[in-house]
């Protein structure tokens, strides 16, 4: 398949199209809206399902295989807040708190981007390593911690924010699911497969419909905040994405795995990070970080980023 064909394939997946349907619905001022409980239910399902599948895979992966990718991912998580912070300070010219808040978001990871990348990679006939969800969990937390430390010298609310991150529902569900998958293994998988595995791309489609609506309601903010934020969100995604692909291949991941790690690295959090930042850095402006993460970086990765990281992984590692 050539690049254009891949792009088309990605763009015409039900998930990506549902995202645009959501945007359209909001721009047309439709009364379509997801009840809060539905949004929460879907995210509980998705996070637990990712973790669980990862755990089952991990159950038959030798430690030696997973060690290097895990270490590299950790390094990635510790490093990524710095480019984000300095770019925000220099290029966007925002306050220290705002820069740290952005760094927390670009230092963490978007589970949905991860899922979309995984789906894409499988659709084009590659496979990613089964333990990728473990890497997501590893990538989610450290970046937020580093970023909060960048934002605050005095402690104060910092410990509270750390607790918020570590016991936040996305970490608990993903790590908890992973553990359950690890312990219950294939036998457990067999029992719950038709709930946690088979329907999940469909559930993800609904989730992206909702995400599209949320992103669209951020577009007007984008217009106010300006073009520099778009450059920031896209540039950082590309830089982090390339880094992720490169480190992934270095760590011995397959082409598929490296592409997915690239997408993860390129993504910005919109579940764990906002909650932590709101507590630890209340002076930071939510419009800035939510808009960058949800209305710039997320759609960019969803549509263009993922095929790019995949092409790159194939070019270097294939």
């Amino acid at each position, binding site marked *: 398949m050539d690049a254009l064909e891949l792009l088309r394939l990605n763009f015409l997946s039900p998930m990506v199209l549902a995202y645009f349907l959501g945007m359209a619905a909001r721009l047309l001022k439709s009364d379509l809206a997801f009840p*809060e409980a539905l949004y929460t239910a879907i995210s509980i399902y998705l996070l637990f399902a990712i973790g669980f599948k990862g755990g089952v895979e991990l159950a038959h992966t030798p430690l030696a295989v997973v060690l290097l990718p895990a270490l590299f991912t950790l390094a990635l998580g510790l490093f990524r807040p710095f480019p984000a912070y300095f770019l925000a300070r220099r290029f966007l010219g925002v306050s220290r708190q705002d820069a740290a808040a952005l760094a927390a978001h670009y230092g963490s990871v978007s589970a949905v981007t991860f899922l979309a990348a995984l789906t894409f990679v499988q659709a084009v006939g590659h496979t990613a390593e089964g333990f990728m969800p473990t890497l997501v969990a590893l990538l989610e937390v450290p970046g937020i911690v580093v970023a909060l430390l960048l934002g605050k010298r005095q402690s104060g609310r910092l410990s509270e924010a750390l607790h918020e991150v570590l016991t936040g529902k996305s970490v608990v569900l993903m790590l908890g699911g992973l553990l359950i998958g690890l312990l219950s293994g294939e036998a457990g998988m067999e029992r719950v497969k038709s709930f946690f595995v088979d329907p999940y791309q469909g559930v993800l489609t609904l989730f992206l419909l909702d995400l599209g609506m*949320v992103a669209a*309601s951020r577009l007007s903010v984008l217009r106010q905040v300006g073009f520099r934020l778009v450059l920031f969100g896209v540039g950082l995604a590309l830089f982090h994405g390339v880094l992720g692909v490169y480190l992934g291949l270095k760590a011995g991941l397959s082409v598929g795995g490296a592409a997915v790690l690239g997408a993860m690295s390129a993504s910005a959090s919109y579940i764990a990070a906002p*909650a932590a930042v709101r507590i630890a850095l209340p002076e930071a402006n939510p*419009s800035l970080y*939510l808009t960058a993460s949800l209305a710039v970086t997320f759609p960019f990765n969803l549509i263009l980023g993922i095929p790019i990281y995949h092409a790159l992984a194939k070019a270097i590692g294939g």
Partner: protein
Amino acid sequence: MNLVPLKLLTIVAESLLERRLVEEIKRLGAKGYTIVPARGEGSRGMRSVDWEGQNIRLETIVSEEVALKILERLQEAYFPHYAVIAYVENVFVVRGEKYV
């Protein structure tokens, strides 16, 4: 009917603050509270979708003294950075002794 005049203090705030606000008002003397999830709009724009966080509407029946203490604490620690609004009313409460 034994109706005791007390203060009804209502706080609308971003839901993220729930745990902390509940701790504060209890520490300052509130004996109970009632919370309802809410959405709204104010000087910081719309608060309704999950990512921006919903609001809560917290009500507590307290003595005038406790009401003032809570309001002071809010003004000092929450108003500057968070989406919060607070107001007080006069109410007449059945078995009001329980709440002071």
